[in-house]
């Protein structure tokens, strides 16, 4: 187990390096530079380039990024908060916190609501309840996050005035409601659909027939024998979900005016604030990679057939 995790961490560092390289290449390919503006004189730009080392060859710049990152130094912002430590912007100004809070709430909701809904639908398959849940989940995965977010905004905040349209820094429960619902609804529905399908799949397996032949109660059959097996595909899905939730959070953050990581990333791209782009990409990628590792370990807990060392890619 320990050696497996070590191996995965080494692979993760490799992956991160490649992601850094891609990001570095792409952000330098964006036309223009952070200091370009109507007021800036060519001399001033040149000075700024020198100051931040942008005049050096690209390969040297990249090497500097890597070595600084290895020392835990994420550099300083060039434009948006000129001169401020990027690490400080991301972690101390609460941007990372906000996105994580939002993402984790949505993920937890997806699991805690999605899986039981899927179970209920499978357990009561063919009934009106199953039908209702199927309609809800099918529609749920067809509504884009931003449409749902705006609908909530229009109805709950603008028309009914129950909630504040600006969620701000997510300080109290009420401010969580709209962003978390809009972010998680797609995943709740998807997880519910997935659970239902894999549950029905499991129910048709031979071992369920064996358990039935033993005289096991239907409830136990579903909750014990079928559920644990059907969780396997659901867990597989949770890895990509993390990446998806980051996507969703971009939209949700901009709709509800939450000053989180997603919004900041979009701004940093538009402003060509290189160190911020790089740091955000690396932090979010690391998050996805860690999540994938967690999923693989969770896999092991649910399915004894998988030994971590030889899981098929």
């Amino acid at each position, binding site marked *: 187990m320990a050696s497996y995790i070590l191996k995965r961490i080494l692979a*993760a560092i490799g*992956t991160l390096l*490649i*992601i850094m390289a*891609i*990001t570095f290449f*792409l*952000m330098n*390919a*964006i*036309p223009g530079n952070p200091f370009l503006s109507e007021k800036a004189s060519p001399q001033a730009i040149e000075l700024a380039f020198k100051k931040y080392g942008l005049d050096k060859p690209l390969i040297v710049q990249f090497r500097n990024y890597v070595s600084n990152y290895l020392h835990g130094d994420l550099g300083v912002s060039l434009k948006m908060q000129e001169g401020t430590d990027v690490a400080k912007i991301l972690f101390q100004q609460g941007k990372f916190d906000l996105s994580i809070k939002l993402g984790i709430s949505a993920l937890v909701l997806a699991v805690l609501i999605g899986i039981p809904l899927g179970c209920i639908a499978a357990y009561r398959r063919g009934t009106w309840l199953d039908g209702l849940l199927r309609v809800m989940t*099918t*529609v749920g*995965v*067809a*509504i*884009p*996050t*931003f*449409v749902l977010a*705006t*609908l909530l*905004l*229009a109805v709950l905040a*603008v028309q009914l005035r129950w909630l504040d349209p600006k969620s701000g820094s997510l300080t109290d429960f009420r401010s969580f409601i709209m962003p978390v619902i809009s972010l998680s609804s797609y995943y709740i529905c998807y997880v519910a659909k997935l659970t239902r399908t894999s549950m029905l799949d499991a129910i048709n397996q031979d071992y369920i027939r064996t358990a039935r032949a033993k005289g096991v109660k239907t409830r136990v059959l579903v909750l014990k024998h079928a559920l644990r097996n059907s969780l396997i595909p659901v867990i597989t899905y949770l890895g*990509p979900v993390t*990446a998806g939730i*980051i*996507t969703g959070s*971009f*939209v949700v953050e*901009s*709709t509800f005016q939450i000053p989180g990581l997603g919004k900041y*990333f*979009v701004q940093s*791209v*538009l402003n060509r604030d290189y160190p911020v*782009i790089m740091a*955000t*990409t690396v932090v*979010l*990628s690391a*998050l*996805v*990679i860690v999540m*994938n590792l967690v999923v693989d370990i969770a896999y092991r807990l649910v399915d004894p057939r998988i030994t971590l060392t030889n899981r098929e*890619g």
Partner: protein
Amino acid sequence: MKERFAKISPFQVDPKEIEQAFGLNSGDFEAASETEKESVVEKRKSVSYWRDAWRRFRANTVSMIALFVFILCLLFAFVGPSLVPYGYGDQYRSSQKLSPFELSKDEAKVEALSGHCDAFYATALQPGSLTAIKKGDYFIRFGGKTYAFTASKAIEKSVIVLDVKAEEPLMLVKMSDIQDDGTWKKSTPIEHTDTPAEGAAEIKLISRVFPHVFGTDSAGRDLMARTMYGAQVSIIIGISAAIIVLLIGSVYGAISGLAGGAVDFVMMRIVELIYSIPEVLIVLLLQVVLKDPLQAWFDAHKTGIGGMLGDLGAGIVSIFITFALLYWVTMARIVRGQVLQLRKQEYVTAAVALGATSGRIIKRHLLPNAVGSLVITTCLQIPSAIFLESFLSFLGLGVSAPMASLGSLCSDALETITLFPHRLFYPAIMLTVIVLTLNLIGDGLRDALDPRLKK
């Protein structure tokens, strides 16, 4: 059955009884011929895979309804624009910010004309500059007759009115002369002949003002035309992206699965790498990176492929590039999985043993077997591409005005959500319905094509 079982024992019962019970006669125990034997076997027609799949798909009511609704969406998106007289990019200056079916003042005035003449053409209602008809030769066809004339500047802010029964059938009425009840104070006859001059342009008269069914936006663009066009763009993006993903993913996956060994290992590590990149970050970067160079390239290559892609716009093309770079991995994995699974099948081993070439094996054995899951995955890829495009448009990175996609329409509508909520409603519903029906069709295809469910 039980009674017969008890009674009839050939060694205890008189055969006469049996004869009577079953109405037997001696001929019954003659040997039956082969043809007689065959005639009692009702052979079930052997059905081809696709016909069988189609039968199962048809039996699935939900999927059939979804297919029907999707076809309606296609008609709306592709046939609709030719039925609506408004263009997606045309700005009607007097018709800004209208609610659904609301007519602007000018339109209401012109509409009132409809009871008082046969047909009309209002330059004031035309998009852009007020002199929609420049000086030159024009002709009108109406009721089997042709009216050719030369327009002058006087046509500005006026309506060409055709009233066959009147003394002067073709006349020009100034907007300011039209009264609320649809009559006009004065008119100027237009001199006309029966034969149009060479190169004259036709003007299509209308007998009613076409309503703005979805209303108009702040720039005076007709929202129904824009929604139709946006749906068209979204569907084209979805299908093209799905095809790109299908091509790249299946080729990559097939190579990886067939080659095996070190090649497979390296190719799959690349797939894993792409999997762990938070795509959206890279997509956002790519969009920004590609936009200007692509635009520059389009400007330099106005003909051929460059021109074609240029019509789509840099935003859409960079979405295609993004899909080509990042989104094929799922497809590649599925295809590789299929290939590996099929490679293990005996019939493939048998074909290899018989000396079939790889190309033949792919064509004859792997493709027909994998086609089901390819179709399903491709079908479900379309909504995800539409989603991605709308997401990018929402963040202001997708298509650029005056072009529209469902995502950009939603995004535009958001700015005025408090004042005009209906503007969000139509594109959002359209987007949801398209994605929903495609998902349902995909589910139906999965049920119909998945051989595991075949009984």
